[in-house]
Structure formats: C-alpha cells, structure tokens
C-alpha cells in the first residue's frame, strides 16, 4: 500500500503540508476578521442593505443547489457500486465488495465535503466583501495604503481559505485512499465545481442583467439612476461581489483540485513503474508527494506576497504594489520548489536529482506572470491598446470596430 515505506523526510513533509494547510485556513480567517466593520454608525446603516442582500442571494437558489449536490452524491455512490472496482482498489481493501463500499462512501462523502467547503468559503467571502464595502470608507479616510489593504483582503482571505481547505482535504484523501485516491479526488473536485457553476450562473448573469436594467433608456418609468436606494443597484452590487469573490474562489478550488488529480493520475502510474514491477502495489511516493508539497509552497508564497502588498501615500500605486507582491511571491515559490525537489525528487533509474519536475513548475510560474503582463498590456490605460480605442472613440462610431 502507498502509505507504507515513507522515508522520515517524506513523513515530515506530509506533516508540514498539513500544518501549512491549517495555517492557510487560520490566516485566511484572520484576514476575514480584519475587514469586519464593527462600528454602528451611518456607514453601517448605509451598508445594511448589502449585508442582508448577501444572505438573500445565498438563500435564493439553495433548493436548486441542494438538489444538484445531493443528487450528485447519490449518483457518485451509485457509480462506485455499479462499476467493477479497479485492481488497485481490490488490492488495497482486500475484497471486491469491500473496495466497492469504501469507494462509494468516499465518493459521496468527498462530493458533499467539496460542495460544503466551497459553499462555506462563498458564504464567508460574500460576508467579508459586504463588510469590506463598509470598512473601505474609514480606511479611505485614513489614506490610500489602508484602503488598498481593505480592498485586497476579502478576496485574498477567500483564496487562502480555498487553498488551505482544498489542500487539507486532498492530503487526507491521498493518505487514506492511497492508490485509489484519484477516484475520490475527482468527486471532491466535482462537488466544488457544482457549487462553482451555480455561483457563476447566478451571479455572473445576474450582475450583468442588473447593469442592463440600469442602462439609461427613453422609456418612461425606468430610471437610469444608481445609488443604494435603488433596488437594482443593490442587487447588482451583491451579485457582482458574488461573481468576483465567491465565484472566483469556487473556480480556484475546482482548478486546483483538477490540476492535482491531473498530476496524480500519471504520477501514480509513474510511481508504480518506478518501484518494483508494475501492479505490485509498491509505489515511489515522491511522485505523489511533490504536487501536494508544491501547493503548500504556493500557500506560503501567497501569504508572504500578500504581506508585501504595500504602497505609500506618495506613490498611490496599487498595481506596482500588487506586482511587487506577485514577483517576490513567485521568486520565493520557485526557490522553495527547487529546494524541496532537490530533497525528494530522484530519477528512478539512477537515484540522482531529477530536475525535470522543477522545470515544469518553473514554466507554469513564469507563464502565469507572462499572462498577467499580456492582459495588463491589452487592458491597462497606460498602454497602447486602450489609448487607441479611446482615441478612436473621440470621433464617433465608425472605425471603432
């Protein structure tokens, strides 16, 4: 079984991964506390509609969501009971019947846990975002740096909660289910993705619909006015924060789990090939451990990068502050990934350091920074494309295609 034969280093790394996951959840929750607006003043009175709006939004679609999630869990369990279990599952649990039962329980449970965690994160994130809307006012009175902190923290909080919860549960699944964990992790990811679809459809379409409804028209009775007294504005703001905070976190959750499963499927097969004969139940654990460790490194780098997002009253440059956090975070992540891979990743044939997995990670990190640069170029008002569009718009419609 995959659990046996850890080297001490590998065992310590697993503990480190679990610890970092918990730290991530704790830090995410601390950030969440930081943006709460506690004073009962006129700001709280004005923002009350947003706070209650988030509750109404989450309650409005819950029937549909419950049907999808519970139905999904039942189908997952049924799928495990109907299909013959794989050879690895039988090897691990002793008999076919037992393998089927454990996989069925794991699948249904993982789907529920996945959906539950994403819902929890969405609920916390929406609350934090409504609170931060209010907390932004006193922060902006204090100055630009404080306002940037408040505006950045809610999303960062839900991102860290997502990364931490996802890593904690996935590591637990890998430890318990070993070679069968791919099956269970797929279901865990699906649970999150179901909620993500629900969030994306309801908030994405809802927010744009609110914009459309507020578009000034000639029709009598439909006013183009905005403001928190206008019910459509409130709905639009709530749904926009749902789409930019909650749906983003849910999307992050799904992609992270999919990437992990994508690494584990070939990873497990390679681990099997690397250790003894194929199908003998012996695995080289580093192939499975490395992706988990990478995610833990990412969390540490994110926390450090988030702490580095600072600007001062003189510069007032949010983009430079965030970019600095990103670059330093990415550099730290790469250094740490190189160090860890030097310790645990060995070529199966020659027991020397295998630099190739690190290179793949390097590509990913660098491409992420490149992608940010590219869309910054195409959408930032200080670069050519936006200036060009604005210039053409200055003389009416036609060439503004």
């Amino acid at each position, binding site marked *: 079984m995959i659990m046996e034969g850890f080297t001490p280093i590998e065992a310590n790394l697993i503990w480190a991964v679990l610890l970092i996951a918990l730290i991530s959840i704790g830090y995410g929750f601390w950030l969440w506390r930081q943006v709460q607006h506690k004073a009962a003043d006129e700001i709280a009175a*004005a923002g009350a509609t947003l706070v209650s709006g988030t509750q109404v939004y989450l309650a409005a679609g819950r029937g549909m969501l419950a049907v999808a999630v519970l139905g999904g869990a039942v189908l997952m369990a049924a799928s495990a009971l109907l299909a013959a279990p794989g050879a690895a599952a039988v090897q691990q649990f002793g008999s076919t019947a037992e393998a089927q039962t454990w996989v069925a329980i794991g699948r249904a449970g993982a789907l529920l846990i996945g959906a539950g965690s994403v819902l929890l994160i969405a609920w916390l994130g929406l609350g934090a975002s409504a609170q931060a809307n209010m907390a932004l006012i006193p922060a*902006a009175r204090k100055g630009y740096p404080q306002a940037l902190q408040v505006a950045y923290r809610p999303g960062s*909080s839900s991102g860290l909660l997502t990364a931490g919860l996802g890593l904690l549960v996935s590591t637990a699944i890998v430890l318990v289910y070993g070679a069968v964990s791919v099956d269970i992790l797929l279901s865990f990811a699906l649970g999150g993705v179901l909620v993500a679809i629900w969030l994306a459809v309801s908030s994405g379409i809802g927010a744009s619909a609110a914009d459309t409804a507020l578009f000034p028209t000639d029709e009598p009775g439909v006013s183009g006015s905005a403001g928190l007294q206008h019910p459509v504005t409130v709905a639009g703001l709530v749904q926009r924060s749902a789409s*930019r905070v909650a749906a983003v976190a849910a999307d*992050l959750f799904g992609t992270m789990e*999919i*990437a992990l499963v994508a690494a584990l499927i070939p990873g497990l097969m390679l681990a099997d090939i690397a250790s003894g004969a194929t199908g003998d139940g012996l695995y080289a654990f580093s192939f499975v451990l490395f992706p988990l460790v990478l995610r833990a490194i990412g969390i540490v780098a*994110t926390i450090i990068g988030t702490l580095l997002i600072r600007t001062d009253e003189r510069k007032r440059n949010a983009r430079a502050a965030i970019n600095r956090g990103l670059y330093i975070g990415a550099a730290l992540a790469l250094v740490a990934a190189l160090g860890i891979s030097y310790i645990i990743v060995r070529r199966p044939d020659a027991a020397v350091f295998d630099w190739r997995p690190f290179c793949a990670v390097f590509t990913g990190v660098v491409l992420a920074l490149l992608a940010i640069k590219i869309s910054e170029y195409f959408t930032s008002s200080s670069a050519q494309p936006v*200036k060009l569009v604005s210039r*053409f718009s200055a003389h009416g419609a036609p060439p503004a295609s």
Partner: protein
Amino acid sequence: MGSANGAEAGMWNLLLLAALVLSSASIYGNEPPATHFLSIGYGIALSAIGLLMLGGMLSGMQALPSIAEGGAAIGDLTALEKNPRNVIDDLTFVGKTISVSSRSVSMLAAGSALIALLGASYLSFWANQTGGDVPELFNSSIFAPLVLVGLFIGAALPMLIISLALAALPRVAASIAQPTARDPQASKAAEAEGKPTTEQAKLPADATLALRNSTSATMPVLIVLLSLAVAVPLLVDFLFGLESLGGMLGGLVVAGLLLALNQTAAGSTWEQALSYIEDGNIGGKNSSAHRAVVLSAAVGRAFQRPASEVVIALIKGIALISLIVAPIIGSLRQPGQSFGISIGIAVLVFLAAFAWSVLSKPASTGSGQLSTKKTTKR
C-alpha cells in the same frame, strides 16, 4: 478596435498554452517509451499547479474592483469627502485591469489543468485496455502533446487574422478620406494625368483616387496575411512535425468557423437593429436607442465583412498550403530527429513575433491621429 485587441490578447494566451505543453514535451523529451507520455502529462499538470501557485493572491486581485465599487456606493450615501472618494475611485479603476489580468491566469490554469486531466485519463484508460503498454498510436491522438501544441497554434491563428484585419480598418479609412478632404490638388493632378477607362470615366476623379488609395492601403495587410498563411504551416510542420500540423488544421477550422459564424450573426443582428430603429421603432432616429445602436451597427458591419470573410478565406488558404507543404518538409526531416534545437528556434520566433506586435503599434497610432485631425476639421 476593442475586438481586435481582444482577439490579439486571446491569441497570445492560446500561444502561452501551446508553450506550456511544448515545454513539458521538451523537458521530458528523452524519457523511454514506456513512461514518455505519462511523464509529459505529469509535467503539464505540474505546470498547471505552478500557474496557480499564487492562487490566493489572484483571487485577492479579482475581488478588488467589486469591493471598491460597493464602497463607492456607500460613500454616495454617507457624503464622503473628496480625497477618500478619489482613493476609492482610483482603486476601482486600477482594480478593473488587475482583476482582468488575474482572471486570464485562472482561465489559462483551468485550460492546462483540463488538458492534463483529460490526457492523463485517456492515457490511463488506454493503458488499462492494452495491459500497461502505451501504444505509439497515442502519438497521433488528440491528447498527444505535439497535437495539442498544433491545436492551440491553429486556434490562435483566426484570432491573429481577425485582429490584423480589424486593426487595418482605421488606416484604410484614413486613406480613403484623406485625398478628398485634405488634398484637392492631388485629386486634380490625378484627373489631369489619368487616362480614364470607360469604368473610371463614370466616377468623379476624387472617387477614383479614394478607391485606388483604399485598395492599395489594404495591400500591406494582404502581404502580412499571405506570408502568415505560408509561414505558419511551414514552421509548425518543420518544428513539431506532421502530428502538430494535423492538430493545427483541426484547431484552425473549428476556431475559425466558430469565430466567423459568431461574428456574422452578431454583426447582422446589430445592423438589422439599426434599420429597425430607423424605421421609427423604439424612439426612432435621434433617440438614445438610435445613438447606441449606430455604434453597434458600425461594429457589426466590420464584424460581418472584413472579419468573417477574411477568416474563412484564410482558413481555406492555410489548409491548402499545408497539404502542399507537408510532403516537402516530410522528405527533409530525418525520422526520430530530436527537436531540441527546433524549440530554440520556436522560442526565438515567438519572441520576435511578440516584439513585432508591440513595435508595430506606433504605426497605427500615427494613422489614428491623422484620422482624428481630419474629423475635427470636418
């Protein structure tokens, strides 16, 4: 213009995905056959994890504008002073770009994670069916790394074509308007020098010149597009091989058709909406609905003709050129040749293209200024 930018940004992001797959394929290029594709899949998945390493920061970036907008709405109610108001407005403004750039990373990560997942599942399913062996046939399946590289390049091509076609519009428009509005001497000279054929004789001299100028103004675009049509299949086939070329053609046809069909339908809807409103519905001419729809109709016209027609024509051209090129390159390449050097060349080409795309921007800025001046005169 906005749509041309969008297409260009989309192209670069697709090429990033191609680069991601390619880098794993070259990192694990020397793996023995039994673990070759497994390792590449593992590498792609690790790259996807790498893309999302700073996921927590990305989600913080995406939330920024919505927090600021909500704060601004509350500020409206509580009579916020000018300075904090400016702070919040700036955060909203900067936040929107920051949010878009992090969203594109999430989308790329989702794309690469999905490729890795589907490819790995496909591979493991295949390995189970054949008892552990990964047959060489996988090499030409749709999830084979080199096919994927081709697929993304092919899907990026229509984006590039459409962005080139749309970006040329303002320049050509300027060249039509220029002689008639600014250079009466030139048009007179043309009248004097011209030996009008029967067709030209029916046209006023200004119109002849406008037509001639606008046609010749489209020639640079034509040259660029044609050289693309020849160069891309050649390069793809030469650098990555026949599987990649096949993938490229598949991606090209699907993405090109999707783009052209979408733009034709959307464009025609916008144009029809203009006629409908001008017929006196929903307020008729000079209503706010009319002002809004005039812009959409202009975009719609650009979408229908230049965009979709150019894309369809070039799809056909590239496909035919590929078929002619493939056997020639095939006969040049030694079997089993490693593509280590080719990747170096590919990276150089990629960088050169990027530099070219950035450097070529000032030219179109110039023409933009020209046409702005012209309109203000009018």
